[in-house]
């Protein structure tokens, strides 16, 4: 296998090297691969007025909605359309026909703007016409009863009688909705039309994005891709990320985030993307499509395409929004007054420190106002086009000193040459940001400390004590910031080498660097209470640099044999190299606050050997050879084959390379004759695919014995120096995880194209799970070895639907629905050598070392809570739990063994929602538009750690939830983890409501103007009593444990404006 691939790559090298000669030879062929690019943008709002005929649908491949019908390639229409193509029959009887009439009119889109390039034909007859730039047309008909058929890509066809031509016709075309069958889907190293796709791919483009102040590119597609699960455990903290999981957990320790491919950059950085720069997002959900990305693809692949310039007049687009956030869900703790009253009444034995501050409230940035400004300019000619955008964002969190200001520039240039045989595309993007990371934490501390504690002493200085941190003072007296620059540059050259054969060379560089600085004043609590240098301040500075290089030459070949056999193939080589390095240093013992972190040497801790200095560097290489073949017979029977041969420097010497094959097939049933009579089915395709992918997302040097420092010890000369010993057990067999996945799906359009959707069923198994497996000691030195042992599986069903309920001139109403269900199992965690019967996850945290909440046994579902079963309280308020015989006993009689045959612990719940669903309603009435987005998670449990820790009235020293004095009042015992604190997490959230208004202008100076208002996180319906259930991790292996220190859940309101001119 390796030899074959080497030969293929050798051939590829040869062809590329000789390509200058090749393209010098071939000049006259007309192959318009590159024109695909300009059809990807389905944001008709922006491009309809300036539609340039050359950007019409690429027709070298048969277009399913070719306006003129038939398989005959259409030549590029002339800039000024003909006023009517003379039909053969018409020329046969020139001017003689008394019925011959010229019908004129205008074709407009849903915004009443003239549509150029709309194909018009006469039903059942030959001849036709095309609309001009302003949408006007004229066509000759022979009878008033002739039926004119208007067709345009992306719009529903319309038929109407020609009439007598007395008055010009106005024909309104309406967009054909979310899933246009001619949409181009990005599938990695190329594109396919929706109709040709055989694997499970979700395509979401600009028109379907959520237009509501996205913080992350994936926010745009939330609720649009069934099976894509986003959890934002840090809420709206502007310096936090989002947890992404596709189709359940596929790994234990490997990389669990999908691979991002941005304009072809593998491992692209989503931080470089602004909402307005994104054209479309494609998600390769199953292995049969993702295999093209081999060892990086186990968690799925998310391909993001950015907007490109378009030929035509220059365009400016400006968009902005302002957002204000309000705390939505504050946990119900006693207020200072209530706490004090309870002390007075004797209900509470606590100290009154005399303060009257709202400690938690003091951390809230009530004046928060975030803003976003984006200006893009684009334009070009047929040979060169460009798009540049400049973005400025100032994101302010709900916490003080918790914000982020950033600038992003992005530039895209495309240029053709050599008679359109060469197309070069360049992207350059850079993000400069300043993050204030000091705030946004400390919420739990101020929520649960004795609320009579003060912020200030009587004399106006900050109140400090050893037992807690004055978080408000910390925000005033410390500093923590990150200055980051992230850039990427990529270039892609496409060369038409021969008819149907194209060569591409792609190269990219990404560079991410930041400087962190932190400082604490000599008056700060951290400094005052420092053990070694009390009052000596603190300062640190660190740098990080990450560079990622990719080089990927490919060859693509397309051909149609005998009109029915369509073949497209791609073969390529991929070289990826990543390197990371950094250093940091800190010092203490300063005499004043003069230098902050900008002159680290002046602290005394450095002299004493108590300052810190660290540095690190690591790199890894990934090399692959890959190929894909798509074959279609008569556009009905589709087959796709993929093979990737890939190696990683991280793998052990015995297993450097692996193969990742995939096969998938599709059947466009609705094109079969026997389906023609089933009128309610407009389109139906069945798909089945099987693919193998891998995961190489683990640390470097995991397969060999490396030595690490073990702390300093005394040498014979009395000096203390570092000691070194092995830090890993050797495993020369270490390799990638392998996921095998079967996907069966159907795409359909039903009921007059009103209902569209896709359903997918999948069954995936990841074998050779990477983890730290327990080694027998002895002979192994360390307790764990990084090895490939276990198996994890998931099975599920996903459904995506969109329904156009009403579609009239003034009113449209449509709905989108996605739903998914999943069963995720740890099939095995043992092999001949390593034997693990169970694994625990989900640390409960807090006092009392309650351990992990989740125990996953071999063969059992992920996310199962294992714990004690609550049996009530005894007369003294002590916990009682059921033992395995159903007898209520005290905790010290509970058998905590993990052996299911002995233990008194039981399966008490599951933290992974059984069902996910989302619903979007879109309503447009004249100039108004309205969108509501609702999503929910159903049938799962959450461990309410806040109640566990702060609802227990017998525990002293902190503030209490109000429920400690009613619901939980009888507890007179220490913290215990049991099903008593498991609550139903089911929730339904009205996540977004947007109302917008589009102005109409007579002038040509302003192309469009829309203003909108959005409310986010408006209503949460749930029985759960802890934090916002949305903040509780519901993916991965340790879900379901609520966070005591959760970032506040906020409700936000946003006002935005989009302007095109």
């Amino acid at each position: 296998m390796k030899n074959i691939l080497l030969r293929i790559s050798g051939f590829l090298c040869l062809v590329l090297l000789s390509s200058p000669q090749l393209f010098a030879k071939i000049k006259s062929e007309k192959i318009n691969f590159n024109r695909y690019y300009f059809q990807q943008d389905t944001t008709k709002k922006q491009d309809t007025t300036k539609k340039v005929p050359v950007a019409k649908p690429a027709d070298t491949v048969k277009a399913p909605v070719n306006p003129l019908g038939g398989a005959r390639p259409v030549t590029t229409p002339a800039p000024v359309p003909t006023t009517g193509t003379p039909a053969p029959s018409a020329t046969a009887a020139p001017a003689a026909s008394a019925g011959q009439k010229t019908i004129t009119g205008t074709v407009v889109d849903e915004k009443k703007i003239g549509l150029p390039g709309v194909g018009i034909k006469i039903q059942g007859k030959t001849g036709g016409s095309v609309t001009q730039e302003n949408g006007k047309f004229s066509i000759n008909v022979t009878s008033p009863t002739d039926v004119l058929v208007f067709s345009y890509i992306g719009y529903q066809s319309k038929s109407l009688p020609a009439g007598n031509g007395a008055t010009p016709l106005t024909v309104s075309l309406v967009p054909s909705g979310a899933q246009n069958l001619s949409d181009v889907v990005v599938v990695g190293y190329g594109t396919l039309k929706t109709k040709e796709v055989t694997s499970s791919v979700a395509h979401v483009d600009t028109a379907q994005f959520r237009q509501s102040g996205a913080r992350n590119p994936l926010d745009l597609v939330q609720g649009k891709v069934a099976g894509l699960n986003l959890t934002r455990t840090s809420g709206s903290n502007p310096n936090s990320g989002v947890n992404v999981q596709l189709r359940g957990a596929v790994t234990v320790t490997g990389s669990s985030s999908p691979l991002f491919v941005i304009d072809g950059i593998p491992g692209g950085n989503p931080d470089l993307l602004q909402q307005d720069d994104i054209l479309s997002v494609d998600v390769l959900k199953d292995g049969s499509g993702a295999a093209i990305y081999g060892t990086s693809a186990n968690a799925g692949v998310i391909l993001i395409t950015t907007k490109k310039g378009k030929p035509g007049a220059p365009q400016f687009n400006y968009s902005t929004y302002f957002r204000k956030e309000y705390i939505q869900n504050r946990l119900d703790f006693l207020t200072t007054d209530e706490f004090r009253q309870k002390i007075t009444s004797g209900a509470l034995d606590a100290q009154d420190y005399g303060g009257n501050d709202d400690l938690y409230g003091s951390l809230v940035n009530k004046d928060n106002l975030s803003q976003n400004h984006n200006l893009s300019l684009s334009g070009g000619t047929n040979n060169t086009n460009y798009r540049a955008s400049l973005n400025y964002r100032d994101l302010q969190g709900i916490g003080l000193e918790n914000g982020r200001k950033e600038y992003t520039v992005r530039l895209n240039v495309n240029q053709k040459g050599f008679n359109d045989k060469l197309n070069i595309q360049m992207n350059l993007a850079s993000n400069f940001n300043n993050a204030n990371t000091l705030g946004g934490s400390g919420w739990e501390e101020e929520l649960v400390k004795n609320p009579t504690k003060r912020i200030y002493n009587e004399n106006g200085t900050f109140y400090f004590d050893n037992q807690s941190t004055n978080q408000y003072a910390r925000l005033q007296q410390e500093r923590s910031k990150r200055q980051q620059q992230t850039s990427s540059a990529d270039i892609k050259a496409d060369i038409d080498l021969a008819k149907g054969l194209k060569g591409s060379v792609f190269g990219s560089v990404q560079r991410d660097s930041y400087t962190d600085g932190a400082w604490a004043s000599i008056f700060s609590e951290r400094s005052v209470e420092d053990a070694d240098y009390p009052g000596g301040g603190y300062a640190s500075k660190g740098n990080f640099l990450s560079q990622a290089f990719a080089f990927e030459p490919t060859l693509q070949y397309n051909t149609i044999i005998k009109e029915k056999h369509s073949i497209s193939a791609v073969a390529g080589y991929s070289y990826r190299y990543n390197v990371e390095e950094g250093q940091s240093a800190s010092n203490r013992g300063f005499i004043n606050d003069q230098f902050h972190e900008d002159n680290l040497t002046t602290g005394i801790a450095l002299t004493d050997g108590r300052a810190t200095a660290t540095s690190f560097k690591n790199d890894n290489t990934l090399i692959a050879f890959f190929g894909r073949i798509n074959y279609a017979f008569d556009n009905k029977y589709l087959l796709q084959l993929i093979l990737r041969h890939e190696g990683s420097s991280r793998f052990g010497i015995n297993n450097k390379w692996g193969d990742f094959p995939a096969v998938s097939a599709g059947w466009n049933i609705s094109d079969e004759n026997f389906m023609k009579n089933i009128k309610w089915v407009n389109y139906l395709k069945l798909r089945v695919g099987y693919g193998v992918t891998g995961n190489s997302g683990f640390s470097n040097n995991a397969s060999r014995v490396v030595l690490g420092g073990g702390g300093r010890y005394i040498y014979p000369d009395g000096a203390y120096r570092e000691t070194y010993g092995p830090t890993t057990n050797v495993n020369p067999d270490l390799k990638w995880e392998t996921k095998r996945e079967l996907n069966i799906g159907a795409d359909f359009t039903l009921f007059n194209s009103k209902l569209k959707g896709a359903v997918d069923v999948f069954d995936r198994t990841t074998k050779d799970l990477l983890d730290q497996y327990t080694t027998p000691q002895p002979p192994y030195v360390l307790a764990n070895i990084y090895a490939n042992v276990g198996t994890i599986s998931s099975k599920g069903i996903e459904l995506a639907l969109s329904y156009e309920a009403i579609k009239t001139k003034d009113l449209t109403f449509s709905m989108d629905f996605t739903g998914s269900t999943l069963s995720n199992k740890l099939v095995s965690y043992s092999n001949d050598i390593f034997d693990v019967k169970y694994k625990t996850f989900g640390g409960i945290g807090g006092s009392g070392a309650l351990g992990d909440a989740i125990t996953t046994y071999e063969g059992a579902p992920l996310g199962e809570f294992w714990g004690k079963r609550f049996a009530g309280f005894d007369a003294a308020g002590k916990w009682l739990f059921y033992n395995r015989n159903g007898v209520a006993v005290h905790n010290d009689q509970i058998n905590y063994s993990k052996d299911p045959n002995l233990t008194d612990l039981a399966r008490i719940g599951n933290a992974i929602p059984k069902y996910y669903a989302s619903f979007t309603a879109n309503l447009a009435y004249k100039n108004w538009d309205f969108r509501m987005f609702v999503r929910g998670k159903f049938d799962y449990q959450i461990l309410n750690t806040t109640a566990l820790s702060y609802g227990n009235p017998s525990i002293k020293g902190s503030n209490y939830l109000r429920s400690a004095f009613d619901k939980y009042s009888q507890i007179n015992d220490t913290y215990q983890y049991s099903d008593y604190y498991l609550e139903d997490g089911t929730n339904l959230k009205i996540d977004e409501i947007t109302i917008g208004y589009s102005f109409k202008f007579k002038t040509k100076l302003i192309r469009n103007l829309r203003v909108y208002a959005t409310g986010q996180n408006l209503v949460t319906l749930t029985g759960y009593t802890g934090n916002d259930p949305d903040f509780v991790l519901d993916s991965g292996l340790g879900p379901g444990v609520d966070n005591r220190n959760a970032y506040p859940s906020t409700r936000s309101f946003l006002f935005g404006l989009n302007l095109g001119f």
Partner: protein
Amino acid sequence: MFLLVGLGFSCTKLDENAYDQIPADVFYTNKNEVLSAVLRPYTHANAWVTPSGQNGWWRMAELSADQLAWPTKGPHGEDGGQWKRLHYHSWNVDEDGYNNAWNLMYWGMGLCNSPIQNLENRSISEMGITQAEKDSYIAELKLLRAFHYLKLMDLFGNIPISLTVPTGSVPTSEYPATSSRKEVFDFIEKEIRENIEKTPKLSREMLGRMSQAGGYAMLVELYLNAEAWTGTPRWDDCIAAADKLITNQGGGQNGAMALDNDILSQFNTTNDLSKEVIFSVAYDYKRANFEPGFAADFFHFAQKDIYGGGRNGNDGVVVIPNVYNKYDNDDQRKKQWLLIGPQFKFANLKEPVLGTVEYAGKPLVFVDNIQKNSKNSTVSTMSEGEENSGVRFNKYRLGNSIAGFALNGTDTVRVQPDPNYNNTDWNIYRLTWIYFAKAEAIMRKNGGVATTEAVTLINDVKKRAYTAAAWPSHAYTTATLTLDELLAERGREFIFEGFRRDDLIRFGKFTTTEWWDHSPSSAFRSLYPIPQRQLDLNSKLKQNPGY
């Protein structure tokens, strides 16, 4: 195109680089690298020999006995019931904590095997050391390895012996099998005897390391417990090994080995200057930036206010009720090694240290009981503690990092920051313990009755705890120094030092007697179970009898 040509040479090259780590095969190239590997097991010993805040040997050796416990204190310390199960002797075969101790101890053992194997396989020229250095490093490491097996055998009895480290995957057929406790005992004895003379004597240069002195101390421990561990008493061997140390034949870390004259020199911040320390884990926060680990288990949440240092703890291990009263009031150890009563700030002795949980904002007063005094409860169990429950550890001292005050009699004296703050070494063996062992061996040989020699040995160490005036009324005689009294005195002298479980076993009391919240357990509980995790992984291991 030229890019591709340039790439052609590295088209399929997947070498792995290490920049900030050291692949094992490029090490041992100079003397300091050799030493850095020889010394690695000592920094690791911090984790398992000392009360480091982890489940290592120390917790298992103390918290199942009759002096120390980790009761639940309000919200803290329930910890899945693991401390109760230690106290009640009701542990399961699959306790994570005991597997952790096994992991840590065998890891340390592997950190001895690794340099032994590397040193043996390399020439002295490639390592830049002399043959004498090579031999002495290997002998030292073999003694240190024997020490690991000694403590493993102490807890688990019948254990596997392994002397190499894997260089590739190990077939399950090559996993080591269980050796009986007797076999392990014999192996340890043989290793010590074969290597003790090749190992350097204890000296200032060997501070904190295994030496001849440490080797003799191991022999003393081995022979003292020989009857309990193998059924065969070895009292004469025990006395002989003890005499080697008492007569300074193993060297000393500060000149000739001798008892210190007081009861603090062994435990204070300059205990590297003690004359009686035989083997210790050395700490020097100032130069190594590495602190002794005991604060975590012993210290209260506000402990640093009490002693003027920088470290608080988890309010974990406390003294079981009434152990405090086993010291008479003239005994300086009662005052010096234990903390009780109201606590005052080191920085200002007039200001009380405040509690943080049940006594938040109120004076912190350590009491010799474990019950909810704040609720006027007298229920005294492992479940009913509060933040101030139990008398506290004060034997080892970290020193003070800030200036403050101390009471000297009734006078308040100003104390400057301790230049050796946080440098306190943790003793594994000290000469006092050898004196006790020898005295016990003599008594055992003598039918459990003290001889004059035994009484002298014990009196020599005990009198340091008394003023000259008070001492005569507390000195032992051959009549008063019974075996039971010896056990009680061992308790007073070696509290917190990790020997109590062994003492109770040797005196036949570990599983048969009751104390505080503990009832007699079963004889098989004298050994901990082989962790189920290990049995699952290595089918050649056998579970200990009774489990």
